[in-house]
């Protein structure tokens, strides 16, 4: 049943004057999920999101939003915060936010009724009558968010929602997003902040060079990438680890190292080796982080293409 998906892309392709930005991309974002859209810079994320928003038309394939083809009719049901933020700098904040809701089909009166609660929630109530260019970067970020949600969309697409926010602002934003999820809003987050994605998203897709590298529930993705990552904390010179048998990659985090083993290698062998040469204070087999999966898959893809 297609209506179970908030967004569904089927064999979508888009190219610009010879450059293929998106190739045969199929994706499904289930209703009510928090979906992480990952990919390196230039992977085709923004182009994909613009096609979902009907700003660009795909060359091939179909896009459905909440069961209906993407088009003028679907725009109002989706809120989109692009990576490049944009507000009219000389416009008064509340005027601006009402305008943004109006062009999304909400009446001015209804938008005005909803606005105070949002301003209050994001700490902008005292700034409602200020011009946008008088606001700090973080406040503009929050204002942009209100502009995206004031028309109460069923699907919310946020490109780097946390950028520009301090830790308190980030926590606040996370709570706002979780509240929206509880109310049934489908969230699509495009971000390079893997920590944010890991904490919030229940599903992810990784795209690179216009193609999907992986897609699925976060837990499945991690399982699929095996139990071959271990965390090791120790005293002594650990430089031998990188060339030890069965080790694919070592990432030094300063206080500990993360070691990825090659397929089928036994971590116990490495533990014995390490115990013989170092004072080991921590040894733990962990799930790979999304960060590691991202780096591994994108690097492998770059090698495969080259």
């Amino acid at each position, binding site marked *: 049943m297609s209506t179970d998906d908030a967004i569904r892309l089927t064999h979508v392709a888009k190219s610009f*004057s010879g450059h293929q930005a998106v190739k045969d991309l199929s994706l499904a974002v289930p209703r009510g999920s928090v979906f992480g859209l990952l990919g390196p810079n230039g992977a085709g994320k923004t182009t994909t999101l*613009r096609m979902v*928003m*009907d*700003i*660009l*038309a795909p060359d091939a394939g179909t896009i459905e939003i909440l069961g209906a083809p993407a088009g*003028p009719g679907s*725009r*109002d049901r*989706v809120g*989109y*915060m*692009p990576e*490049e*933020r*944009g*507000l*009219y*700098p*000389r*416009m008064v904040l509340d005027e601006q936010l009402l*305008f*943004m809701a*109006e*062009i*999304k*089909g909400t009446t*001015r009166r209804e938008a005005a009724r909803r606005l105070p609660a949002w301003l209050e929630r994001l700490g902008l109530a005292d700034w409602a009558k200020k011009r946008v260019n008088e606001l700090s970067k973080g406040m503009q970020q929050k204002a*942009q968010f209100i*502009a995206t949600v004031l028309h109460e969309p069923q699907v919310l697409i946020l490109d780097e929602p946390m950028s520009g926010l301090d830790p308190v602002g980030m926590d606040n934003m996370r709570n706002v997003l979780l509240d929206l999820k509880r109310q049934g809003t489908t969230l699509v987050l495009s971000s390079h902040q893997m920590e944010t994605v890991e904490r919030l998203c229940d599903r992810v897709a990784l795209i690179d060079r216009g193609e999907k590298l992986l897609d699925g529930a976060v837990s499945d993705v991690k399982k699929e990438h095996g139990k071959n990552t271990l965390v090791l904390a120790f005293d002594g010179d650990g430089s031998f680890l990188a060339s030890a048998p069965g080790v694919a990659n070592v990432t030094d985090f300063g206080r500990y190292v993360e070691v990825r083993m090659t397929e089928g290698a036994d971590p116990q062998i490495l533990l014995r080796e390490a115990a013989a040469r170092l004072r080991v204070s921590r040894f733990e087999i962990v799930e790979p982080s999304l960060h590691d999966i991202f780096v591994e898959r994108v690097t492998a893809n770059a090698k495969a293409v080259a």
Partner: protein
Amino acid sequence: MSRLWPIVRREYLERVRSKAFIIATVLGPVLMGGLMVIPVLVAGKAGKPLRLAVLDDSGTLAAPVEAQLTKLRRDDNPRFVIEPPPLGSPETRERELKAAVIEGRLDGYLHLPADSLQKASASYFGKNVSNMIDLRMMEDAVSDTLVGLRLTGAGLDPVKVRDLTKKVDLKTIRLTAEGEREDRGAAALFSITLLMMLYTTVLMWGQAVLTGVIEEKSNRVVEVIVSAVPSTKLMAGKLLGVGAVGLTQFLVWVLSLAGVSLAGASVAAGSAARMPEVSPLLLGAFVLYFLLGYLLYSALFAAVGASVNTTQEAQSLAFPVFMPLVVGVMFFPMVLNSPDSTLSTVLSLIPLLTPLLMFLRITVLVPPMWQIALSIALTGASIAGVLWVAARIYRVGILMYGKRPTFPEILRWVRTR
């Protein structure tokens, strides 16, 4: 339609509320009025009378010329005060007079050579020789005196001859369907003023569209807007909103003009320099051709704005766009002189020139109805075409950042689906 309205309203309110608009709207007519009134007031004030001396080599002409000059009046005051010339040889007298002029004791002197009666020649030496009105009076005075003396010499009565050879004072009366009115050059001045107003406002509001598009693009707000409404609606809303601001400005101007005219009419009643009347027909034509010109040019400006990243980049592309407006202004003397010539007719039917030149023709001599209708139809069709092309450039251009596109690239944008 419901999505268009907020965009039109935003464009309109943000501009009308701005200080720049209020200043331009209030100051525009004040400045324009000042520019027209102040020179007249200044030119009318003649200042102190001129102190003159007459250096007469013949010895017989000085007295009648001086008599004629002292009779001349300006602003009900004698215009020329005649100082006695110094004595001595012709050379010393001339040297002394020159010194007097340089030192400011005299404003100037007239030199009548010995043969000036025969050759009708005289010279004026003065520090200021650009006071046209005074010089003209002086020339007429000397000329009248010399002619009078020659007539008397030939045995004729100067007064009688003058009566008999009185020149025709050609009054120009403009005939219109509404009636007739005397007109002494004011009509031409009025046409030029309206033409310049039309030129300025079309250019000004066209440029406002240009900078508006560039600002939206550089603030990146455009992507947020087009994720809500199609780019064509954004462009349409912008053109309508800015156009409405232009019309608001006219309305303010027309109302203040009407106010001034009403107030002025009682004061200036009976005055010879009557303001040419602004007929409702002319006003309607002005608004119509403003809208035609504005839509045509602002659509082009919108396309230019979408293709560039900064105002600086826009300059080089904007010039060819408003070039035809400049050309239109350059053609005005020709069209004004022969508004019904084939060339004027053809030029005024070229859509890019129509807004200025057809309107100019209407101010001078209302062209045949079919020509007006044709000009509206042709310009309307061009606007539709330009809007279509501009909307396609706009749609792609507003999301393009970085390198400025080449002309072939822009053409490709027009062709893309």
